[in-house]
């Protein structure tokens, strides 16, 4: 405990901002289909995302947080995790959730104002997206604790934004991961803004990855717009958690090309010039360039992908719009496992009230 201590935080990047490579790539990149899939899913993510924004603009969706420019992070996570691992996402992780099996229309249902939209589908034990910033870190630490206590080889992965790293529970959870050696991977999507607050007003730390040092665990900073680097870092961390039961922190440095949510107007506080710089570094164009250069991608594939994405998105929107209304008593039926007697009267009142409201909406009925 006593004595001089030294620490280092590595930085991981394979593709430079132009999609050029001048370092050896990790072994798994010989799997060309994997590379293609990473690309395809980023494109799908963006297509869905932009559709969701459009739905909001036309009054068909509530407030929605876009992931524009941060697709590499969610896609890498979604593809690197195993099915029975547990993802504890935050609200900007739609694509990771979808890649783990969530029916994409649920994303819309969620932001459309329906609790059912939090269903990840199937037997998944994933958490729903978390709104109160950073609180999900502790849930994830708890999930990982359960895995550890039961001696399972599953892993928990939790995400958060750069702003979240300022909130106490972020560090409390990281610290626990260290002291209990939890099978936990924490991924920060450092999109460099927390609504209107830029990173330099959030912390004086030179990197967010170094927050790991405070917890005595490994921290790595990766270029979050380099999907190879993110995927590689996440995979390595998952492996380490699975096999060595060691936690780690990954900071993926990305950039939020969108407004914070559709309720936000970033032009109030963010310079267009800064935005332009970051558009030039976004993950999809860069990776497409790389794939082209290697001959893993061509126009025909791109055309097919675009068509596929359009079709998928149309189907998703159709499913969303077709979703039948949940019955009104649902607002109290899931409060407890068994409705307490004390609430029976209120449940009835809910039903009656819904009928009155329905009558108002359809005065002819």
């Amino acid at each position, binding site marked *: 405990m006593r004595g001089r201590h030294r620490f280092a935080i590595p930085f991981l990047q394979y593709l430079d901002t132009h999609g050029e490579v001048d370092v050896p790539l990790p072994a798994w990149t010989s799997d060309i289909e994997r590379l293609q899939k990473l690309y395809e899913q980023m494109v799908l993510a963006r297509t869905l995302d932009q559709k969701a924004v459009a739905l909001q603009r036309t009054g068909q969706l*509530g*407030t929605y947080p876009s992931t524009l420019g941060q697709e590499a992070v969610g896609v890498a996570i979604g593809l690197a995790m195993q099915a029975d691992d547990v993802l504890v996402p935050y*609200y900007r992780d739609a694509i990771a959730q979808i890649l783990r099996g969530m029916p994409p229309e649920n994303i819309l249902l*969620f*932001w*459309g*104002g*329906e*609790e059912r939209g939090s269903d990840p589908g199937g037997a998944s034990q994933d958490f729903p997206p978390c*709104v*109160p*910033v*950073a609180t999900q870190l502790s849930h994830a630490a708890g999930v990982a604790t359960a895995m550890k206590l039961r001696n399972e080889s599953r892993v928990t992965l939790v995400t958060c934004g750069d*702003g*979240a790293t*300022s*909130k*106490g*529970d972020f560090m409390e959870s990281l610290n626990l991961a260290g002291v209990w050696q939890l099978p936990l991977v924490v991924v920060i999507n450092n999109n460099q803004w*927390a*609504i*209107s*607050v830029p990173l330099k*007003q*959030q*912390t004086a730390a030179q990197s967010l990855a170094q927050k790991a040092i405070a917890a005595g665990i490994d921290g790595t900073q990766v270029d979050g717009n380099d999907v190879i680097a993110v995927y590689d870092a996440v995979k390595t961390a998952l492996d380490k958690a699975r096999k060595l039961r060691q936690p780690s922190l990954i900071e993926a440095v990305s950039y939020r090309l969108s407004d914070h949510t559709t*309720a*936000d107007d970033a032009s*109030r*506080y963010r310079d267009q010039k800064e935005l332009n710089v970051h558009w030039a570094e976004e993950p999809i164009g860069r990776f497409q360039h790389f794939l082209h250069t290697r001959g893993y991608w061509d126009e025909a594939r791109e055309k097919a992908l675009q068509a596929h994405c359009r079709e998928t998105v149309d189907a998703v929107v159709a499913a969303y719009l077709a979703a039948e*209304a*949940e019955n*009104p008593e*649902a*607002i*109290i039926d899931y*409060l407890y496992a068994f409705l307490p007697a004390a*609430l029976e009267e*209120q449940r009835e*009142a*809910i039903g009656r*009230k*819904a009928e*009155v*409201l329905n009558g108002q909406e359809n005065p002819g009925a």
Partner: protein
Amino acid sequence: MNKPGLELSVPDTESVTIAEGTLVEAVTLALRYEMARDDCVVILGEDVGVNGGVFRATEGLQKQFGSNRVLDTPLAEGLIAGISIGMAAQGLKPVAEIQFMGFIFPALEQIACHAARLRNRTRGRLSCPLVIRAPFGGGIRAPEHHSESTEALLAHLPGLRVVVPSSAYKAYGLLLAAIRDPDPVIFLEPKRIYRAQRQRIPNDGQALPLDTCFTLREGTDLTLVSWGAMISECTQVANDLATRGISIELIDVATIKPLDMETIVTSVKKTGRCVIVHEAPRAGGVGADIAAQVNEQAFLELQAPVARVTGFDTIMPYARKEDIYMPNTIDIQSQIEKTLNFS
């Protein structure tokens, strides 16, 4: 220290203008007035600076007063409350914004254990003249956690003041009073009516009292008690019933803590009937306390049980079913009718 509600000299830099504005603009106006008058007033919170707050309540203030007076904090509500206490103990008058009341929980330890206690703990040596502003309430189709009304939690904590304006005019005067008050004030802004109405606001720096309810309408048949956004529905119902010859006395509680029961009890002694309306869940809501006290203090005059129209004892639903949760004019009117017909 100024006793809240005292007349104050208008700062030279600011001439008395009659502004017309919405509730959220009244908040800005009051903040601007007081920042000009008293350079101890410092604003802090998430996104309150360049962005002017997500509801624009602090719009333009950083530009006008500089970034030493309007501070964008890191994302940590506990910290925001905690440093406000430290600043207040040093004689500043921090006005902190919690972006939505749903995110006030991390600040509760600081509010309950320190803000509310510092004066008592130090027997008056250190004090906490701070204001914590938070938009609250539902009805704007916001995502989960953006619609809570948890004023009852704060109203249970000794040492706090809890204030809720119901109009632009009140927001202006009550916020000035809150900032000038030498003790911690939780100032809850009903965001559903942030922009519902424009109202004349004499920008004269005149504070409203922090310990009296406002009787918005006199009446003889029933006392209707509410606060915040629900005052709109209550007013509408009272107006409607007036056309039917039913005379409602409408009381805007405005200051939830300390609670001016005198105004309410005097009214109920006159009308003999009382209905309380609030958005928060019924169990343990502020309505319970008012009902209990009305019963204690006007027992013999009551001609019907004090009734409560409230949210249900469940989680505020996501947007699509928000309307089922929210008390509305039909709920209020039918309860009033029941209470009037009670025998």
